[in-house]
């Protein structure tokens, strides 16, 4: 094992240390160099109070198992806390999931009693959700019509998701894990478009014009005058 070139380069930033991992060598070489640095050669900078570590992988893709291996090596020193892994590459699967998550499904028609429709990403429904009908989405749900049935936004736990409808008169709403039976928990029926959202783990309903205050950094673009 003759490391002619540094496989792991450690640099300090104001947020802690960044471990730059060489992305052209083999994983074994990388691991042995990391072990060497953490356990022997860089004692003086790696001891002391808690230090946050960012692991920058460059163009290397790590499997879950490999990531665990690196975590274990760094964790041997109790004061080193891994903040995040940064990589320039992601798997195809993850890329697809991210693409779907940012996708808005435009759907037309009426969701009728007994029908369950599930979507990845946001849903823009041009139609009604009738009592007994259910729409699920990993993102937010926007209904250009009457929401009189059930809606579940943030299917995989996104608590920033919202449910908006021209007429929000649901029998049941759910955002992430929080379920709400509107008739019992909030009374509205204003003549404006409304939306439901989570604040401190509780569901609230507000007029749509308040969305800017409630989710200030939610959309990609704002209205500019």
């Amino acid at each position, binding site marked *: 094992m003759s490391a002619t070139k540094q496989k792991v380069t450690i640099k300090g930033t104001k947020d802690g240390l960044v471990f730059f991992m060489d992305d052209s060598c083999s994983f074994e070489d990388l691991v042995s160099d990391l072990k060497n640095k953490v356990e022997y050669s860089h004692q003086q900078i790696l001891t002391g109070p808690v230090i946050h570590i960012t692991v920058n992988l460059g163009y290397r893709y790590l499997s879950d198992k490999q990531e665990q291996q690196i975590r274990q090596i760094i964790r041997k020193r109790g004061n080193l806390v891994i903040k995040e892994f940064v990589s320039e590459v992601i798997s195809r699967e993850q890329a697809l999931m991210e693409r779907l998550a940012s996708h808005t499904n435009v759907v037309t028609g*009426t969701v*009728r*009693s*007994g*029908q369950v429709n599930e979507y990845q990403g946001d849903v823009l429904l041009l*139609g*009604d959700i*009738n*009592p*007994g*009908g259910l729409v699920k989405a990993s993102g937010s749900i926007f209904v250009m019509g009457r929401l*009189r049935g059930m809606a579940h936004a943030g299917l995989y736990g996104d608590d920033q998701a919202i449910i908006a409808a021209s007429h929000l008169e649901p029998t049941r709403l759910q955002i992430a894990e929080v379920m709400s039976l509107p008739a019992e928990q909030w009374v509205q029926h204003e003549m404006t478009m409304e939306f439901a959202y989570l604040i401190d783990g509780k569901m609230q309903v507000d007029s749509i014009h308040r969305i800017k205050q409630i989710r200030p950094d939610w959309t990609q673009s704002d209205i500019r005058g």
Partner: protein
Amino acid sequence: MGEAIVITSGKGGVGKTTTTANIGTALALSGKTVCLVDTDIGLRNLDVVMGLENRIIFDLVDVVEGVARLEQALIRDKRFENLTMLPAAQTKDKSAVKPRQMEKLVNELKKDYDYVLIDCPAGIEQGFKNAVAGANRAIVVTTPETSAVRDADRIIGLLEREKVGTPKLIINRIRPHMVKNGQMHEVDEIVNVLAIDLIGIVPDDESIIASANLGEPVVLKHQSPAALAYRNIARRILGESVPLMNLNSHSGIMHKVKKWFGIR
């Protein structure tokens, strides 16, 4: 080649059989050849409403099982040359027939008749699947009650997945004075929720019960409001454009005078 129309509702007791009998009779009155098919195996009623109960020899299950030929099971209505019905079996249940067999049977009937009206049983199980199998079009019957509208919504959802496409709606048993008092859903409200086209509205009418007990479809009584409503629906099926009935129509000179002065 005729057309097969299934008459369904989801909920029971909203008037599917009455509707089938009356639309069928009205179509026959306007000169079309019509065959009524009762698919409510085990709980048949259409024969009773049509007054043909005591003429049943063979039934739908006999035909499907090959015990009888189709022509043997068909009952010709003596009042009209061009109206026949195929009764359901009373001793079997819905599982006696499969959708495939129903489809074949209905296709057979479509060759000989202008209209094949299929009376669907309540529910969404086997009986419903059988009834829908051979149909080209569907009519959903509901009443102005929340439970019936809910079930109609469910049925429309199921029909949209079948090849019958988007069904047409009949709202049955409307009581104008209850609608006026806000105790009953309005027609517009129901159409709004169900989001399908209306093909007719039928007022609640005591003569329906009376004529069903007599075994005479109400359309044969010219003066009854329900009879007029069913004749209108038949005309719409034939492609005529007939305006919806005004259920709040008051007759009498005093009403006209009041209307003149703008008092209602």
